[in-house]
């Protein structure tokens, strides 16, 4: 991971670093390409909107390549690399000219950074892998935002960080590595939101059960995992489940509605952007 970090930082304009707690006006706006995963496009466009608005608030010049579709993960994760290839090629076509790609999805970022091998190796493919950031990583590591003065969220929150984000991207420490120092980038950002209260729950980084196509092919286990996680969260007294991965939330929300559970769901971008209460 350390080597990758060096590659990425060297592609980031120096003007974007060292932004610190107070946003100072910049001579040039940093440009990022925004990637919106297909399921957010179709089912949760408000998450895409919140992501875009927040980046704009942070004085980022956001470009949205209109012909984007998907990162190729659903096919690749099913072993169907041949079927994933054309989609990944389209991704390269849309995004390779950008030095920085941001997406509000840990699982897509993990796929693009650590897999993305349905296309033959090329400088463009490597550039994409080295240039993609999860939205939380971008705010925490690149922009180093430590304040969200426009946001207010006076609720009890159960923070769910996806397996892709934790074990694929290193966005938070994992329970398996017991002696590592504890940290969480999404939590660090959310802590700055006025009124927010975190609640702890059991097995915090056990998988929620979505797992992409797994959620359908092994539906009974996926649902049981979702139900179990919801029960742990229910015991914690959380009003909201917040995550940087909408795919997990889509799955948990489906389980919660079937169970008749009261808990509500929000993507981290919506909370940081100042979602209407």
């Amino acid at each position, binding site marked *: 991971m350390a080597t990758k970090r060096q590659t990425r930082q060297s592609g980031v304009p120096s003007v974007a670093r060292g932004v610190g707690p107070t946003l100072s006006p910049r001579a040039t706006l940093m440009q990022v390409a925004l990637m919106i995963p*297909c*399921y957010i*496009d*179709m*089912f*949760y*466009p408000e998450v*895409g*909107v919140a992501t*875009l608005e927040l980046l704009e608030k942070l004085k980022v010049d956001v470009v*949205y390549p*209109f012909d984007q*579709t*998907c990162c190729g993960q*659903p*096919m690749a*994760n*099913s*072993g169907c*690399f*041949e*079927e994933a290839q*054309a*989609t990944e*090629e*389209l991704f390269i076509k849309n995004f390779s000219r950008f030095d920085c790609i941001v997406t509000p999805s840990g699982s897509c970022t993990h796929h693009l950074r650590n*897999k993305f091998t349905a296309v033959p190796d090329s400088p463009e493919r490597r550039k994409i892998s080295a240039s993609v950031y999860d939205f939380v990583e971008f705010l925490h590591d690149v922009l180093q935002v430590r304040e969200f003065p426009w946001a207010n969220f006076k609720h009890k929150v159960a923070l769910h960080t996806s*397996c892709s984000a934790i*074990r694929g991207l290193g966005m938070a420490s*994992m329970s*398996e*590595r*017991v*002696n*590592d120092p504890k940290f969480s980038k999404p939590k660090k950002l959310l802590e700055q939101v006025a009124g927010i209260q975190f609640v702890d729950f059991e097995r915090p980084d*056990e*998988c929620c059960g979505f*797992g*992409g*196509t*797994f*959620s*359908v*092919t*092994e*539906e*009974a*286990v*996926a*649902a*049981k*995992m*979702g*139900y179990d996680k919801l029960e742990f969260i229910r015991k914690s007294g959380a009003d909201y489940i917040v995550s940087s991965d909408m795919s997990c939330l889509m*799955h948990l*929300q*489906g*389980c919660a*509605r*079937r169970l008749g559970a009261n808990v509500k769901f929000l993507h981290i971008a919506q909370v940081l952007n100042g979602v209407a209460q």
Partner: protein
Amino acid sequence: MSAVDQAKNAAAFIEDRTHEQHLDQLLWMMRTRRDEAASRVPEWEQLRDLASQIKEHTLSHLAHYLEMFESSAKANGVTVHWAQDAPEHNQIVYQILSDRNADSLIKSKSMLTEECETRPFLEARGIRVTETDLGERIQQLDNQPPSHIVGPSWHKTTQDVANLFARVYGSDKEKTDPVYLAHVMRVNTRPLIEQAKAGMTGANFAVAETGAVVTVTNEGNADLSANVPELRICSVGLEKIIPRNEDLAVFIRLLTRSATGNSITQYTSHFRSPRKNGEMHIILVDNGRSSRLGMEKFWRSLKCIRCAACMNTCPVYRRSGGLSYGSTYMGPIGIIMMPTFDAHRYSELPFSSTLNGSCTNVCPVKIDIHEQIYAWREVMEEKHQINLVKKEAMIVAGKVLSNPLLYRIAADSTETSLKVLPRFALYNHLNAWGRHRDIPQPAKETFHDWYKKHRS
């Protein structure tokens, strides 16, 4: 033989709420105890690195170490045999026993002998075989294979065991106290141990420099199997070799802590030569291991030291039960090993995973388990082992998602979006997702639409 439908077996297991909850809680407790034990060893991650490096070094020089081990063992007065596959292994065992008229055998737990199906082979030839490991014995009496490689009968509740013992031994089925049940087993098995003509064990490790085989048990049943009878057979998979005694320290420190959270098992035993007046045979078994060694993406699975930490942490295994995999090795390590034994029968196993990566991070020898699971999916697809419906859904998805216009048309149409696009995620019928969850509702306008309206 058709492919194991692990998903269907898992669904049946989940219906049985008592057993699903029992297993999930028991194994999560093992995972928690493992975490606790690791937190008391500040050098835990260094030990994992060392263990991984020692194993990778050894596997990269395996022929050299196998020869070293053989020559050390022979110098110790041990007879060394080599078996290419399961039938050869079983035949060698049978030959040794029948040459000495040994018609009763006690054995300690050995996953290798499960792999080779040694017990039914011997029993069919008139040899009485008694498992001495409590969990293995329970499974033997119940005519079931082991469901977990460390706790073979962990899927059973204490009531299940009490019912079984009542049936087989006539004990009181109302008495579910594990102390009582263990006592019932001890009393009934002790005579079989004393009378056995031969003993058989597996090996957790085999040390090349000394020719010793090492067993790790809580019960001491490997020690009994090796010392009570005068004839002793030890089956060793090729990958069990490690170079030196000093390497053993690394593995012994990691093994039990990873398995159950104790610092060590009660009996860590090292056998270099036969007991007094005794005879010792070691059978080095290949059974596909040497071929697996040449698989670029999968050879690291040979580092496995059989701790089962991956099973304990796997959220899918804990809710499916070990028997759902229909295989000798189950859970995450099973998924990456079993296709090397039978690619068709186990073609579905690589899909019994969410790729969450917890297994990889508890593995004491740092096998890249979830990455190998991902790689197996591509292999299965190339071998045309993916079922036709899945494949077709992926073809449709690939076409739609690689064409921006086609994608937007499909995404925009609220009528077709649920029927067409989610189909790639929902496969052959909507009901799969919707069996236990509400289906997400397509938004009134997509992000594409919003962007067009508000930003461009």
